[in-house]
């Protein structure tokens, strides 16, 4: 292609882009149009900024911590939380049987399958394979919405403090799986070696806020430390111990899809009716 032709095409492209902008402009609202790198120069600058950040991006991250937090540092509980825990009877069932979405913060605790970070200018995405869900962390400098709609993963806003990505999350659905404590050994069911033994799941308040600090300890190790802000449960913010994740770069550690519901409900071939939860139906055939 001759230089002249390239130039002509670029000019035409620019004109088309300008016309598109002109058409789009009247419809765009100030609060709904974040800054976007539109020119090649702006885009190069945006990606160069990303390139200077710590490399969370290559490979995947596998949790190496136990699933449950052990709350070994006693939180300063509210009277409501104290009462709730005192009356808590560990259920045979768990809040996430039947593939219920876990939500933050517990969704990142499960492990077993890895997580993967992706990034584009203004946003970091975190795919969590154990739940098949993806968190979207806005890094474009925005503030939280005044009234975020409740969701399992919440509304996350991130910024960098040196090499640490600080993620602030609000807007969490009331039924997101939430561990508020752990029964001490003396009141646990004896002989239950399940990693969920003694875990106290409970409600959280509408203003639950999570602040995560994510950083690389070395190329192979990611650390995430979460502090919970919820004055219905904790009188003062509760800092959980850091969790560690190891980087997997081998092909087997690439992310896979996770569709938990495929073994949940089924159409009974005899009756044609929808039957609920038969993860174990094989048992009875």
């Amino acid at each position, binding site marked *: 292609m001759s230089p002249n032709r390239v130039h002509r095409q670029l000019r035409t492209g620019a004109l088309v882009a300008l016309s598109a902008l002109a058409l789009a402009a009247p419809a765009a609202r100030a609060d709904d149009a974040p800054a976007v790198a539109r020119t090649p120069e702006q885009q190069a600058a945006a990606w160069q900024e990303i390139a200077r950040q710590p490399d969370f991006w290559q490979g995947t991250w596998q949790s190496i911590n136990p699933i449950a937090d052990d709350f070994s540092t006693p939180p300063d509980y509210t009277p409501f939380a104290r009462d709730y825990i005192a009356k808590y009877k560990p259920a045979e069932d768990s809040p996430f049987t039947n593939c219920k979405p876990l939500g933050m913060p517990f969704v990142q605790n499960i492990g077993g399958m890895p997580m993967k970070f992706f990034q584009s200018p203004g946003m970091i995405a975190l795919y969590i394979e154990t739940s098949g869900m993806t968190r979207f962390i806005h890094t474009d400098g925005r503030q939280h919405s005044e009234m975020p709609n409740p969701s399992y993963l919440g509304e996350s806003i991130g910024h960098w403090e040196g090499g640490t990505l600080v993620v602030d999350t609000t807007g969490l659905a009331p039924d997101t799986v939430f561990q508020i404590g752990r029964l001490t050994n003396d009141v646990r069911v004896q002989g239950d070696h399940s990693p969920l033994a003694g875990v106290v799941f409970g409600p959280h308040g509408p203003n639950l806020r999570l602040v995560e600090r994510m950083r690389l300890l070395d190329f192979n190790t990611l650390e995430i430390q979460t502090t919970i802000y919820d004055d219905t449960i904790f009188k003062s913010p509760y800092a959980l111990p850091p969790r560690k994740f190891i980087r997997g770069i081998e092909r087997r550690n690439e992310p896979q899809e996770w569709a938990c519901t495929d073994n949940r409900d*089924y159409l009974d071939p005899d009756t044609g009716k929808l039957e609920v939860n038969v993860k174990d139906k094989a048992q009875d055939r």
Partner: protein
Amino acid sequence: MRAIYWQNLMHSESVTMDVPHKRHGKWKFALAALAALWAQNADAHHSFAKFNMAKLTTLTGTVREFTWANPHTWLIVVVRKADGSTEQWSLVGSSPNMMARWGWNAGDIKSGDKIVVDVHPGLDGRPIGSIQNVFLAKGKVLVDPAGSNGQALAGGPVKVPTKPQGQPYK
């Protein structure tokens, strides 16, 4: 889901087996099965309420069904006992993603295949179990990652046995 539906149809039409149809105890079994998934990051070889994790039993039989499904895979094996009768064992594995990372493939096990499986059997004496190792007729050995820690899950199986590890079931 579709796969299970088809398997149901196939079995209802083409497989006749003398299997009692019990309708209770489903929930408890499902929970125990899920515990196998949750336990991934616990120390290797924890015990679950439903299975005897300290005991390993070796089943030799014929595959009736292998279901590659979330959150757990299922393997149903028909075992011929010493007295000539047959018994159907329902076995739960961990999740397809974890198993794929440890070398399993959905096509590895097919209905009708001869198979040897090391299982942690049910505590209550019912023919149920949690899969530990699978020995295929062609020589491939598969280890179930349930109960492994994060390092092993990312790193792959450390020890792959060359022969069955359990007490033969008669």
